[in-house]
């Protein structure tokens, strides 16, 4: 149960690396665009950006198979893009338009896709954790070998329902991977100020749950740990905890003055640990791609993001009759 080190990482192909590069870049560019649209008043309310944490979802999606489920908190745009949801539908939900995944009725924090097995998008800190266990309960009950990724942050990790869920998940051998995205800050509260037991995955030991910490700025390390976790769940050995150490570059939400950390701290992470830069280096150093190749990808991603933004601006607001639909099935 030690931290997965880069040395443990198996050989990785050019195509895989290019895939990770593309997926992470899509999230980053998408989020930057969302930030811009927010600044223009096209996105309202709360908007929590995923910039900096891209390697977490991209690495774990690489360990998933068709049928696996995922559920997360309100910092959810990255998870949706990583599991293959359409950037246009996500962006249009951010702008509250008819073309959004929830027809504009959910917003940034509340989006879903049955087709892609994405179960939200939950606005209440920690509430998605038992829901994730419940999804895995359903899979076990139905007798398939699907696994659920239940994502939450270091802030949610202090919620009581997380430990209620650990207890039941282990008791019933549920195939759920609890992914603690430790981005070091729960809103403005640093890990150091919120707990004296900062190794979150080790809390699972009290319930008999296996787990480990992993470098969340390294997509290959995340993928390797994810594969281990998923194998554990699929083998019927019950839940697994991954504490993925990562970092968000932007504020908690758009209206975060970031007084709780220094600019130097953020700059240091960006310049020394950036997940996308890391893969870019692997690609260039390994002779897998030239700067021009990567520029072409950048351009392609930019086009996808711009197209999503255009769609999100052009899509009409939901019809007023939508006020009264979808209250009951």
């Amino acid at each position, binding site marked *: 149960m030690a931290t997965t080190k880069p040395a443990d990482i198996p050989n990785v192909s050019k195509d895989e690396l290019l895939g990770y590069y593309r997926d992470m870049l899509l999230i*980053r*560019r998408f989020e*930057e*665009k969302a*930030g*811009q649209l*927010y*600044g*223009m*008043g*096209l996105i*309202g309310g709360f908007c929590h950006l995923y910039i900096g944490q891209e390697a977490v979802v991209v690495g774990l999606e690489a360990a998933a198979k068709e049928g696996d489920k995922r559920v997360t908190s309100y910092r959810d745009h990255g998870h949706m893009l990583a599991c293959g949801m359409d950037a246009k539908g996500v962006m249009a939900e951010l702008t509250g338009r008819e073309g*959004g*995944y*929830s*027809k504009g*009725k*959910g917003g940034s924090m*509340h989006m*879903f*896709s*049955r087709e892609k097995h994405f*179960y*939200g998008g939950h*606005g*209440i800190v920690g*509430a998605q*954790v*038992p*829901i*994730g*266990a*419940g*999804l895995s*309960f*359903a*899979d076990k*009950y*139905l007798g398939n070998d699907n696994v659920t990724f239940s994502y939450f942050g270091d802030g949610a990790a202090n919620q009581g329902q997380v430990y*209620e*869920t650990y*207890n*039941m998940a282990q*008791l019933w051998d549920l195939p759920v991977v609890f992914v603690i995205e430790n981005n070091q800050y729960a809103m403005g509260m640093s890990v150091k100020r919120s707990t004296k037991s900062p190794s979150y995955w080790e809390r699972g030991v009290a319930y008999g749950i296996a787990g480990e910490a992993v470098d969340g700025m390294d997509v290959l390390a995340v993928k390797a740990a994810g594969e281990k976790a998923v194998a554990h769940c699929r083998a019927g050995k019950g839940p697994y905890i991954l504490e993925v150490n990562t970092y968000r570059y932007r*504020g908690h939400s*758009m*209206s*975060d*003055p*970031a*007084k709780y950390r220094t600019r130097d701290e953020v700059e240091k992470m*960006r310049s020394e640990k950036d997940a996308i830069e890391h893969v870019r280096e692997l690609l260039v150093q390994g002779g897998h791609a030239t700067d021009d190749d990567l520029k072409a990808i950048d351009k392609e991603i930019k086009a996808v993001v711009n197209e999503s933004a255009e769609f999100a*601006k052009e899509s009409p607001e939901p019809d007023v*009759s939508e*006020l*009264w639909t*979808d*209250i*009951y*099935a």
Partner: protein
Amino acid sequence: MATQVLMPALSPTMEEGTLAKWLVKEGDTVTSGMVMAEIETDKATMEFEAVDEGIMGKILIAEGTSGVKVNTPIAVLVEEGESADDVEAPAEEKAPEGEKAEAKSDAAHMDKPAVTSPAAPVAGKRDVSPDWPEGTKMKTMTVREALREAMAEEMRGNDKVFVMGEEVGEYEGAYKITQGLLDEFGPKRVVDTPITEHGFAGLAVGAAFGGLNPVVEFMTFNFAMQAMDQIVNSAAKTLYMSGGQMGCPIVFRGPNGAAARVGAQHSQDYSAWYAHIPGLKVVIPYSAADAKGLLKQAIRDPNPVIFLENEIMYGRSFEVPDVDDFTIPFGKARIWREGKDVTIVSFGIGMTYALEAADKLAEEGIEAEVIDLRTLRPIDYETVLESVRKTNRCVTVEEGFPVGSIGNHISATIMQQAFDYLDAPVINLTGKDVPMPYAANLEKLALVTTAEVIEAVKSVCYR
């Protein structure tokens, strides 16, 4: 091509701010994510990061400028070889100004009725069909047996239905509602949970999202307060928030309301709490037949259903139709007794007092019409209104607290839709506005009583 940089909104409510400091100067290369400026709002100083890449062609708003409106162009980014001077009156970004203004004017009118918003759909015609055909063979059974039969029948009919909760399996139910279910269906479908309401309610909601039909027993609804967030925020609202994708077919059931001598924390009627929430259905049966027919209906319903039972009622016997598959639709009140002088509206254990009072009132020549709402979401308004139009008087009876009670809501509906028919103000009988006391004499005083119903009816009849 030149790109305008606009003054950003950095919080949901920001309309203008101070451009405190430029961190780039004209001619600097800008990459996306780079901090370009510091902007002060009334709350904080925030960093403003670049989205687009390019060269800082021209700074349009000097640092130190205050009162810069959101979406004002503050700088122009150019591409290599391009000069900012070439850029004349760069094209406005689409829409934002107009949208903002519009949003603001909407907000200003929030306190007025939204005349353009479509009205809530009105309920359909009143269902007056009998619950079962005349001549149906009946059998006597307790509410407890009726509930157990309902679950067992639905579990036999659909293998995705399972029961979970504290002591539902090996202990056979704290109130023996699940007696025998473990034997018949096994531990996969009769799941004993640890004492962890918040957790297992959330887990069950996830199981419902995942394609199962959970029946969650709360040992009593007092303990469901621990799970309130999962019931309201996760179960009730997700269908709406997902634009109709993510339904939650789940039943939360268990005893609700005062039992006997168990004090304030174990004696509360949550009818009005749950009835407040769009997205929930709320059922509160009185008789064994209703308990059975409505619970079967609840388990088949594709929505989250709150099913409020009552410990005191569990052992009471009623006639139940002896048929294979018997359900009662939601939103259909039952008229237990017809009368011309006054309408008594109640539900759940309140019906005990309502019916007792009606018997005694009949001896004094007052004929009360007694309506059991049976479901509080949806509510059968039409049956109540039709009765009030006939009797011109109404008394509501429930055990819950008085403020924001179901009776208050029924009264308001009558006032709005049958005002001219009323010959007296509607009286709402409720539990008293106090935490439930333990002492036997005080507990009696805190609950609604048959005597109070009689007194209220006489009062509205001016007798």
